[in-house]
């Protein structure tokens, strides 16, 4: 409670100061707009659905990329985590590919897929796969060897092993990496849209800037903060839920 109150002081002062100085002519840069106009633009954008459509597009692509990355990362991570030899063989290649920023692949993806969902999702997938892969490898390596011995004794297939032992045991840490990756997915999706993909929130930001609708632009920035924050909160809270569901089902 105290945190909420104290934490609101500075933003509130800032907003009030901004509003007043722009109304009284102290601050006149056109690039600045003012809180009341921004709020209005935001409400308009929400009401006519334009912001929501764009948000939906961004989320759709981010989710697609994240899912791809999760599949590839978790399966490859499980395989490599189980076989230390294999991991050491593949590791230099991973270390060589990982430092390349995913955004650098934008032109390549453009060449291959043209504008649209596939191109963006691919870039998101490339960016998200590394944290998921690396955490999964380390989580699988940390699984109690006794559990894996049990799997051997019961002569489980790889898929059964994955489903019944590896994933549940490594779940907590993989979950954390998925949460991190989700944040990355959103950021990368917006970035690709800003650079050149004509869909989603990033694109509407650029449009607003280029048509000099600064109030719309700031409103969208604010909206991005809100959904980013909301996403974090949601992820933090639904994280433990799948574990609870799984436990209940046993």
């Amino acid at each position, binding site marked *: 409670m105290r*945190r909420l109150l104290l934490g609101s002081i500075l933003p509130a002062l800032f907003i009030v100061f901004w509003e007043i100085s722009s109304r009284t002519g102290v601050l006149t840069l056109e690039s600045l707009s003012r809180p009341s106009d921004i709020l209005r633009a935001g409400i308009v954008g929400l009401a006519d659905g334009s912001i929501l459509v764009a948000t939906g597009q961004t989320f759709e692509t981010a989710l697609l990329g994240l899912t791809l990355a999760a599949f590839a990362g978790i399966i490859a991570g499980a395989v490599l985590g189980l076989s230390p030899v294999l991991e050491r063989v593949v590791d230099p290649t991973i270390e060589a590919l990982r*430092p390349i920023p995913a955004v650098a692949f934008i032109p390549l993806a453009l060449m291959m897929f043209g504008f649209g969902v596939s191109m963006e999702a691919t870039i998101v997938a490339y960016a998200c796969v590394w944290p998921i892969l690396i955490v999964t490898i380390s989580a699988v390596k940390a699984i109690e060897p006794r559990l894996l011995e049990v799997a051997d004794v019961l002569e489980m297939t790889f898929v059964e092993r994955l489903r019944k032992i590896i994933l549940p045991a490594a779940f907590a840490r993989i979950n954390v990496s998925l949460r991190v990756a989700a944040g990355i997915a959103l950021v990368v999706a917006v970035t690709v849209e800003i650079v050149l993909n004509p869909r989603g929130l990033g694109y509407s930001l650029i449009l607003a800037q280029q048509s000099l609708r600064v109030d719309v632009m700031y409103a969208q920035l604010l909206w991005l903060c809100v959904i980013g924050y909301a996403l974090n909160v949601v992820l933090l809270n639904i994280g433990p839920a799948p574990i609870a569901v799984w436990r209940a089902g046993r």
Partner: protein
Amino acid sequence: MKTIDPIKIAALGFALALILTWQLLAELKFISPIFFPSPSRAGAVLLARVLDGSIWTPFVATGLRMLLGWVLASFVGIAIGAAIGSSRLARDLLEPTLDFIRPLPASAMIPVAVLFLGLSNAMSLAVIAFGAIWPVLLATVHGFSSVQPELRQVSAVLGFSRREFMQKIALPSAFPDIIAGLRVSLAISLILSVVTEMQASLPGLGWDIFYAQRVYRSADLYAGLILLGVMGFAANHTLMLFERRVLRWRNLHG
């Protein structure tokens, strides 16, 4: 005669096998040479540019951009982080606001930065600094706010001033966190350098790749990607070596 680790050979072999497969697929035209030029072609382009020296300008341009933005963000981030992390009041006043702004993608600030600074190096630097400051700021806040209570008490008993406490105890205590934050910041600086170059047509590797795609010179595109990989790897590795040296007390065991 030192025995060579067979695993290392296998690792090398694996990487080579991937490259060779790529080469084979390109030669046999299983994959379109437009999208996947053979490694030999990409390599040839890279070699040519190394030989004629044309590789350095974009490489240095991107490198400088990345480093400048990172250094700027680091200084400001550590300074602000130290102040916030050491004061309960500052944390309560500022953390909610920081938590709210943090999820914003740094690239989303590009339109704003362009409005104020145009398509310029200043814009690029501003965006990079904005994006790179978060990891180091947050890590510093965490580092300073998690100094062992016993150490605070020791400092109180010994009679250290606030400045002495920060310098002798809080800062070294926060080092591991700060350095971890610096590594992430560096990676973000590289990413944002590439993005801003693409966006604003500023000279550098990002721009080279962008341009290569426009004129369908895919070998150049791949050459650019390889160079970016090298830069990213070198930067991170250097920082890691620095970290190992500064934090060498962590790895010692009785």
